[in-house]
């Protein structure tokens, strides 16, 4: 589009009358000064611009393979299939980290006390997006606990700031002060998230941690990377990893 737009602009400028710069150009091309009267468009000018525009489009087309080769290749994409994880061994209050698509996925078994903090005004009022309005989770996890079964939080453990892995940090951890109710703390630039991986205000991370598509195959097994029946939500729809 850009080359065409440019060509059109130059073309109209010419139609308005010979400006100095374009005269210079066409005289070097033709060798004879084009003494066309005001307002007249020469066939050569048209050919010159049309050929120029086509060259630009052609060059852009030829460049595409050189750019696209850097995108994820077929093998990499093929390895991004769903994985099954047995969650029955995770004690309440514990978390495991599994790798899905080269990224860490947190599976946190939340205790009833953990779940209580998610509704505490002291926590909720400090969150950027307490109601999960931003598209950082599938519709079936857009609730107060950001999960399918409130006992298990499943999120991609990549800080939405610049990609470090936040640490699960228990309530009362010394470096985060007495009011800390437990959640995730990112060591890189200090972003904080609650126990639903909702981001706090005043930190550099802009968004909640993303929830991947997942469902329970049976009460013990989570399948990460595949939606529950009836949903065709795409992980690419999230705002940002």
């Amino acid at each position, binding site marked *: 589009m850009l080359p065409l737009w440019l060509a059109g602009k130059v073309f109209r400028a010419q139609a308005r009358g010979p400006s100095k710069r374009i005269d210079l150009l066409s005289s070097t091309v033709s060798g004879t000064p084009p003494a066309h009267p005001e307002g007249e468009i020469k066939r050569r000018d048209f050919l010159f611009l049309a050929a120029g525009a086509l060259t630009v489009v052609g060059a852009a087309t030829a460049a595409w393979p050189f*750019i696209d080769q*850097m*995108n*994820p*290749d077929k093998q*990499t994409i093929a390895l*991004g299939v769903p994985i099954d994880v047995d969650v029955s061994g995770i004690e309440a209050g514990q978390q495991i*980290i599994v*790798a899905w*698509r*080269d*990224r*860490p996925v947190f599976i946190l078994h939340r205790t009833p006390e953990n779940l209580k903090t998610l509704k505490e005004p002291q926590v909720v009022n400090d969150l950027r997006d307490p109601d999960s309005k931003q598209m950082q989770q599938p519709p079936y996890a857009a609730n107060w606990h950001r999960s399918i079964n409130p006992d298990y939080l499943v999120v991609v453990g*990549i800080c*939405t*700031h*610049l*990609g*470090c*892995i936040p640490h699960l940090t228990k309530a009362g951890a010394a*470096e985060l002060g007495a009011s800390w109710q437990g959640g995730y703390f990112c*060591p*890189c*630039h*200090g972003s904080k998230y609650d126990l639903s991986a909702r981001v706090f205000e*005043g*930190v*550099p*991370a*802009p968004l909640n941690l993303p929830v991947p598509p997942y469902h329970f195959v049976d009460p013990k097994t989570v399948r990460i990377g595949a939606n529950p029946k009836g949903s065709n939500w795409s992980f*690419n729809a999230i705002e*940002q*990893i």
Partner: protein
Amino acid sequence: MAVETNNKLVKWIEYRLPVFSFYRHFLVEYPAPKNLSYWWNFGSLAGFMLVVQIVTGIVLAMHYSPSATLAFSSVQGIMRDVNYGWLLRYIHATGASMFFMVVYIHLFRGLYYGSYKRPREILWFMGVIILLLMMATAFFGYTLPWGQMSFWGATVITSLFSAIPVVGHAITSWLWGGYAIGAPTLNRFYALHYLLPFVIVAAVALHLWALHQHGSNNPLGIDVKGPQDTLPFHPYYTVKDLFGITIFLIFFCYWIFFDPGALLNPDNSIMANALNTPPHIEPEWYFLPFYAILRSVPNKLIGVMLLGLSVCVLFLLPWLDTSPVRSGKFRPIFKQFFWIFVIDCVILGYIGHLPPIGPAKFYGRIAAIYYFLFFFVILPFVGWFERPKPMPESISQAVLDKKAKRAGTEKA
């Protein structure tokens, strides 16, 4: 500037490709201001470091494997098994630090003496482009050993692009060639790390071409008025530059032989692990001030934009500084703000190194604000109201005055 010689071979070549007169013109006769101080040594030192990095880099490449499974162990192999491999790697790894140190001093020199002012704007631009290329090269190089810092540094820096609205996500996955930093990323970074230093060589050639168009600036910042103000480059400045390189090599060797670890990060001796971020990640010292600016902003997009602006503002410098006087010597007010700025950059660097909690965050914000105030407020305004000190008529006059003064005090 014909070459005077009777040597048939030289004449034969010169007639077809005038390399000898080119060499004479640029390195022998080239008239340089006679009052250049040691601050003018850092250009040749930077050129020397570029050569050192390229030579050591090419030999390291003979032993290095750019694959995610082998990279880490091949670097360990360089350290333990390859003959003198430890030396080559230490020269290259600490050399990157030396290169940045030299270039930063070179840059602050230009800032103090107004070397970016008319007619040297393009010379200055080429310098900033070289700095940007160096940053990219050093960043790519730092991922190659594939240690924990390599991996997480690369993750943080490439994720800067995810701040771009709408297309950010597509750009990062294009940069990575996968869902995250991984084997494809390492391969392409290696290809680029090999390429960019040669692009730097080309940029340096343009930098020198622009330099030779109007000649060096000098500590007085006034124009050369005639041959009485200059000296031929050879032998005066060739010898001075070689002397500078000798002293610099002593300093450089201290780091290579006695304390290479001070410039490397111990976390990088642990192999990259995509499932574990080290408790404290930080970039190499030469990126710390910019990193501190990034961290002092609690908004991702604005933080990334200010990070970019903090380097790119250097392109605007010729227009932000409104004073017609080049040298800081004659600018009593600018001079003070300049030194505060230097200290500010050091403070930013120190804060970039601290963990991102507590009072460091507050001081980081103040230092970041001064950084931008200096460029966008202080430089334009000081130029308007400052009254410069009287300047000498010419370079040779200033040199003679100084001599006369010294002779006077000796007599007394």
